[in-house]
């Protein structure tokens, strides 16, 4: 048992070191400004824009459920306009970034890990090195940067849609007017609510993309390992999201 724990700790530390090494390579690869900027735009489309439908789908139903659950909780004790407060605060601070991050961990993290793993298995990464391309600047930096930039934007749109769906649900399904909902929404609003959620989602995007790249480039043999790397990227990405969520909450709230 102790040996298993020690092995796990050693494996974790080794992985951490490998991720650090990858990150250092990426930072060094940023010097190739002729390579990564144009590729980053493509990745921004794939990581961000193409992820909008799933993010908005989740946000829409999150807003509806939050609105109904808040009204269910507040009935008889708390004024109903606090539904707006609950929906706004919950989506901006927590549910918007985290649920979107978890969804994108599955979509983006898995995508990156599978793509890079396949490239590794098919020796396309080796071919890039042979052609004097730095894989970090060619493959890692665009994905990580794209995810870091686009995650907050996707989350921002998701938050807006989630609050909007909560408003629509409150107006149509509850005895609440738009004015009351907006009053509750503005009641305890602080600008920190916005930047805190965006900062978190930025860190989520960075972590998911970096883990996806690490897992994908870590593949050595065959399609089976690509699948395992993909699964690992999703699991690690989801775990990292929760850890970072707690980290930012402890640090900033």
């Amino acid at each position, binding site marked *: 048992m102790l040996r298993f724990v020690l092995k796990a700790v050693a494996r974790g530390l080794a992985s951490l070191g490998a991720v650090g090494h990858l990150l250092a390579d990426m930072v060094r690869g940023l010097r190739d400004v002729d390579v990564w900027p*144009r590729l980053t*735009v*493509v990745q*921004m*489309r794939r990581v*961000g*824009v193409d992820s*909008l439908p799933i993010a908005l789908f989740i946000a829409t139903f999150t807003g509806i459920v939050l609105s109904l659950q808040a009204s269910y909780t507040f009935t008889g004790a*708390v*004024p109903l306009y*606090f539904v707006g407060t609950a929906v*706004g605060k919950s989506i901006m601070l927590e549910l918007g970034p985290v649920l979107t991050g978890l969804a994108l961990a599955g979509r983006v993290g898995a995508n990156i890990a599978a793509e890079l793993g396949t490239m590794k298995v098919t020796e396309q990464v080796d071919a890039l090195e042979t052609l004097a391309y730095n894989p970090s600047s060619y493959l890692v930096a665009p994905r990580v940067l794209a995810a870091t*930039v*686009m995650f*907050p*934007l*996707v989350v*921002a*749109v998701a*938050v*807006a849609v989630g609050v909007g769906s909560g408003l629509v649900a409150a107006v149509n399904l509850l005895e609440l007017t738009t004015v009351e909902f907006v009053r509750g*929404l*503005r*009641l*305890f*609003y*602080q*600008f920190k609510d*916005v930047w805190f959620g*965006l900062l978190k989602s930025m860190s989520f995007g960075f972590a998911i993309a970096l883990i996806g790249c690490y897992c994908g480039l870590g593949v050595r043999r065959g399609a089976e390992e690509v699948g395992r790397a993909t699964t690992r990227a999703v699991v690690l990405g989801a775990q990292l999201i929760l850890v970072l969520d707690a980290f930012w909450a402890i640090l900033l709230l």
Partner: protein
Amino acid sequence: MKQRDELVVGVTVFAALFLIVVGAIWLSQADLGQGGSRFTARFRTVGGLGVGDPVVLRGVRVGRVAEIRLGERNYVEAELQVYRDVAIPPRPAIIAASASLFGEWQAGIISLDQAPDDPNVRRALDEAAAEGDDLWPGATLPDIGQLTAQAGRIATDIASVSSRVQQAFDSTAVAQLQESIRDFGRVADQIATFTEQQTNVLRGVGVRLDEGSELLTGAAQSLKSSLARVDSATNQGELARILENTQMASEQVREASRSFNELLGAARENQQSLVRVIQAADSVASRIENRMGTVGLLIGDSTLYVETTLAVQQLRQLLADIQANPRKYFKFSVF
């Protein structure tokens, strides 16, 4: 393909940034472009007032709290951003208070002359105003938490008092109290009975008063009619005749009085004779009472009375016999 990616990404980034900026401004209700003025209020404590809380004038939002900082001499200074074209009342002051039961706070602009009638608030405002600079004086009303805590202390005191009352009211006191209540009930019954009786009496008095009132009404009507007659008589000269008759009657009464006086004088003159007659009668009565004289003996001796009665009877028999046989006793002859 690449240009299309760039376009889509650009549009998405722009839309998301627009959403973030506009949403944040809309939620914070920032007054972009409205400008306005900044004022500083001085508090001992701002309570739950925070940056971004509304500044209201007579209940209408006219700005927001822009900044809160610690000031000199243990004061707290709050920067208030007030919209342009808001008429600030003379001698302005700030009251920080809960806007609802759920933790919302607001800074209300008031005139110092219209400060709440609370000695603590007044003292805080006066103290802040006494600093003598351009800063507005400010005071904080207790929030619902403080009021609840105060209510809790009051409830504790009430519980303590009720506990003492419970100790004071032992079983003896309760029994005495019950007896007192019973006595009070009996007294109340008696009072009710007495009241009922008095009510009947009063009702009778009331009836009599009604009757008296009716009589008075009749008398008043009679008087009224008399007065009317007097009035009419005055008009027809009857009053003069009545007065003459009255004068004549008065003279006759005077004459009668004079006769009566003369009669009284005669009576006074005969008084001594009357006294003597009465004294003689009294003497005779005394002699009779003392069995003196014939009458006295007749009254005092029954034998005489019986003999007398017998003699009277015999006399009656004799008279009857005379009436029946007159020739036996009387003899008439002419010759």
